[in-house]
């Protein structure tokens, strides 16, 4: 225990932060995407350390298994993976730094404010899959249905965007082909 935090937590946090820094600072876009995957894995490890098994494995399944693949596909299909021709740092980096510092301060304030007054280690309720399922079906059924509708809308939108154009007139193309 170093400074009240366990060694395992410090290693995982180091891994996560290193992955995030690499994702922000590397020059090659696909390297950035792969470092982001390391970050996701670090987050999953943090969930697992907190005994949230379902959240940890779902994080791996959804983020590493789907979101990371989505990111790399997006990079590949939009020609962003070539040799980087742009400068890594824009000209208004100071404004970016100020805004990032402000956001960090806000988040720190929110986190510190939410610590309980007593530092007693209360027995946390076991977040078994069964209890998560029961909660999803009873207390949180409306968010579940809304998320399902959102995903369906996204799926339909993706299909519509990717659908090939309907053929306008076949006769014209056939005549052109004959000649």
């Amino acid at each position, binding site marked *: 225990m170093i400074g009240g935090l366990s060694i395992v937590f410090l290693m995982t946090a180091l891994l996560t932060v290193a992955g995030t820094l690499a994702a922000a600072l590397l020059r090659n876009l696909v390297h950035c995407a*792969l470092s982001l995957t390391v970050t996701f894995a670090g987050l999953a490890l943090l969930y697992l350390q907190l005994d949230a098994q379902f959240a940890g494995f*779902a994080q791996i399944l959804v983020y*590493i*298994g789907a979101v990371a693949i989505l990111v*790399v596909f997006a990079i590949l299909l939009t020609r962003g993976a070539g040799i980087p021709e742009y400068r890594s740092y824009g000209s208004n980096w100071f404004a970016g730094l100020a805004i990032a510092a402000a956001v960090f301060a806000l988040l720190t304030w929110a986190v510190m404010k939410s610590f309980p007054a007593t530092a007693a280690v209360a027995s946390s309720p076991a977040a078994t*899959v069964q209890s998560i399922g029961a909660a999803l079906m009873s207390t949180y059924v409306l968010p579940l249905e809304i998320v399902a509708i959102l995903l369906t809308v996204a799926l339909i939108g993706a299909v519509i965007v990717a659908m090939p154009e309907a053929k306008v007139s076949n006769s014209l193309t056939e005549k052109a082909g004959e000649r």
Partner: protein
Amino acid sequence: MSFFSDLDQVFVLLQHWIAGLFPVWLQPVVATILGVIAIVAAFPGIFAVTTVLERKGLGRIQNRLGPNRVGPLGILQPVADGIKSLTKEDIVPLSADAVVHFLAPVVLVVAVFLGFAVLPIGRNMVLADLDGGLLFFFAIGASTELSIFMAGWSSRNKYSLLGAMRAVAQMISYEVPLLLSSVVVVMITGSLSTVKIVEAQGGFTGVLPHWYVFTPWGFAGFALFTVAALAETNRSPFDLPEGESELVAGYFTEYSGFKFALFFLGEYLGMFSIAGFAITLFLGGWGAPFSFLGFVPSWAWFFLKLLGAIAFFIWLRGTLPRLRQDQLMNFAWKFMLPMALLNLLVAGAWRFMGEGWLRWVIAIVILIGAYVLLGRTLMRKQKLGARSYRYAD
């Protein structure tokens, strides 16, 4: 009888005895390390045997002998292959991305080995009895897709990239029916833990076992899961990404020597782990097929079933032609996904209808009806006439 129960638990007893030689605070670590050593020794050993079985089996299906030079009937072929792959020069293309190129096979093999941790190989023989074992398995399986992309992209080779994109598209498409067909098992068992799923299939009515594959929804789920598993591991007839006649070797074109062997190992081990998972979910895990065969050790049943699954996969590889990319995707999204969703419905109805012959009839009618309807609807546009042959003159 005590001899047979000892034989059943022989590996567990061995693990406890070896761990007992160490001080108390070290014992859990040693026990886990022993389990890991057992997995790392057993499954690559099965991999070596499978390479020979596959080449001989495919050879026989194709009316030729397989390898028969090294050792009697060619059984020592894996040794020759191993020595060859270790001593080959490791060629990395000059413009390839060296770090990602190196890490791709490592990520694949690590992810695949992790998947073996939740397979119950025998009674009390699971490395990690996780509450969400099924979810862990699928999460790790999803991570293998990333390594394939890394391999294809880092080679800076158009064919590799094309093969990698096809492979990843195929794997994500078939991930959905894979998960949905296994959700049925979770619904009926009431738990995500692989140990509990195997134990729920442990009973016998008379002589016949309670395996899930012998129920209508279980059979449909097993069929869907097997097809999706074949596609997930890029195994024929879904091996377009590594089609030898189309893409040289697909995403591992630029790998030579030991890295190629690692990819090969990773692919076959993925096949074993997903076959083992299908056995756990649908075929009763380590359970005996008949109640009077209970004296055979549980781990022997698991490996026999695994051998049967491997033989089935090899048979499929030698028999079925390869599917084209658009045929693959259509099959996944238009046929397997609706069938998997319908299977969920049927399993739910099964669960709440209570015992009796009525639920069997309704389940079978719905599933067969859906299969026929869906099949006919999707084949309307295909104009398949009589086969025509062209012979060489």
